[in-house]
């Protein structure tokens, strides 16, 4: 094989591996979320299918595959079909630029545990997350139903408003690292101080803004207004059934995993160990395990949040986004800029 073919092969394998790992994590997450939520509410949750109910996602998958796919009367067929596809594509695109571990040395080559180490990685994430809004707008509009239209409008307004705060919360971390490249931002958090040098401490305010804005961006409780069941039936995906519904759900979970992975990279030192001595075990760099552990903790936090807090009212949501988060993020940028200029 020529070197170009080898590079192409490695890239293809990496794409396939990351894609399937995320698919597997998605089905695991549907189970874990239902189980954990059940425990938080003194219930048992799904525990009939297989040991501890672990086969529940498989059963759900089979069920959804065999359901009838309904396209409502008067719906715009093209956009109705395209919306779930767009949702899943934008969800999976953003996992490409996150570094999941330090560079591997396999078969005498250096293989970074990342699909694309872009010069503009953070900006790429921002661009893709802004495209994700369209899937929801399309789904809401194409179904020709007032509940879906209202759900779609609400969620586009929400995602649009919180995207600004989300992007601004990253700026501090970017300034400290002096680079848009995500792997540079991870490396900039390293050092003998371990977790004391991670950005969630150095960029405390930025991290808090990210936490809130990211939760809103992926439409999780307490910001799940787009699908507020009591008011909008099921929001933008009311009319979807079968695998198209499953794809929309999948996109939501993958987005949640993406913001967890991005938060891990930008604020929790990515693949770095909390104590530098634990970075290698028996001479092997176990960075990707640290990454997985941190991402898992972030995902648990999302479920925990859902079991704890009630939903915001719409006017509170808008007020909070524009009048609290954006000024705080701006303040953080100014303070960080002053700090970077002085040191």
């Amino acid at each position, binding site marked *: 094989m020529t070197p170009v073919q080898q590079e192409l092969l490695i890239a293809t394998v990496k794409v396939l591996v990351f894609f399937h790992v995320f698919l597997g994590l998605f089905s695991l997450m549907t189970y874990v979320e239902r189980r954990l939520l059940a425990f938080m509410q003194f219930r048992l949750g799904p525990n009939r299918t297989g040991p501890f109910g672990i086969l529940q996602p498989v059963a759900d998958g089979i069920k959804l595959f065999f359901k009838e796919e309904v396209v409502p009367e008067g719906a715009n067929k093209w956009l109705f079909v395209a919306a779930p596809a767009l949702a899943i594509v934008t969800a999976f695109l953003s996992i490409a630029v996150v570094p999941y571990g330090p560079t591997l040395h396999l078969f005498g080559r250096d293989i970074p545990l990342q699909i694309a180490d872009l010069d*503009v990685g953070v900006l*790429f994430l921002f*661009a893709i997350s802004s495209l994700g809004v*369209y899937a929801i707008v399309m789904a809401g509009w194409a179904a020709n139903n007032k509940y879906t239209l209202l759900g779609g409008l609400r969620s586009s307004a929400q995602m649009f408003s919180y995207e600004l705060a989300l992007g601004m919360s990253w700026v501090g971390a970017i300034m400290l690292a002096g680079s848009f490249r995500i792997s540079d931002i991870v490396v900039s958090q390293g050092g003998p101080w371990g977790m004391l040098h991670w950005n969630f401490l150095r960029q405390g305010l930025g991290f808090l803004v990210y936490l809130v804005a990211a939760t809103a961006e992926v439409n999780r409780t307490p910001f799940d207004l787009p699908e507020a069941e009591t008011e909008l039936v099921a929001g933008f995906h009311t009319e979807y059934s079968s695998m198209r519904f499953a794809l929309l759900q999948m996109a939501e979970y993958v987005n949640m995993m993406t913001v967890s992975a991005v938060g891990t990279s930008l604020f929790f030192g990515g693949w770095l160990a909390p104590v530098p001595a634990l970075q290698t075990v028996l001479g092997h760099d176990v960075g990707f395990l640290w990454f997985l552990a941190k991402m898992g903790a972030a995902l648990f936090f999302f479920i925990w949040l859902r079991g704890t807090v009630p939903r915001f009212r719409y006017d509170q949501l808008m007020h909070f986004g524009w009048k609290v988060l954006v000024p705080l993020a701006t303040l953080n940028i100014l303070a960080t800029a002053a700090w970077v200029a002085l040191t």
Partner: protein
Amino acid sequence: MTLDVILFYVFGAVAVGSALVVVGQRHPTYSAFALIVTLCSLSAVFGLLGSPFIAVLQVVVYAGAIMVLFLFVLMLLNVKREERRPGGGGAVKAVAVGLGAVLVAQVGSVLAAAARGSGAPGFNASTGHVARLLFSPAYLYVFEATSILILAALVGAVALARKES
């Protein structure tokens, strides 16, 4: 042909095709979606030309921010299919043909210059270079003046939209 060239033609074709849909389509919502496709494929072309920064900005600013507002308004007003007005003045058509000719001449002259090899020299479009250029004395005042112009427009829009109390 290398992979880059093939991808360039694919995205170029998609950009031109979707741009034709934007103009030819009578349903404004379809036009808006087609415009988003055009902007995204243009961004891919920028990326292939070796300027990822401009490619990403294209998506963030145009596809991600401006078009969302367009769609938002289209959906809020629930705009229906555009109605064809019979006729359309001959003067309008003459102006359109004239402007089209100017555009063709412009593109032609640029292509001719490129064919002679006297086109624009290679531009270093990396993030750092663009940032330094933007904040260099040559562009700093223009850049800041544009920002103030946008801010003024924003304040004006808020002032107009505010309810009299």
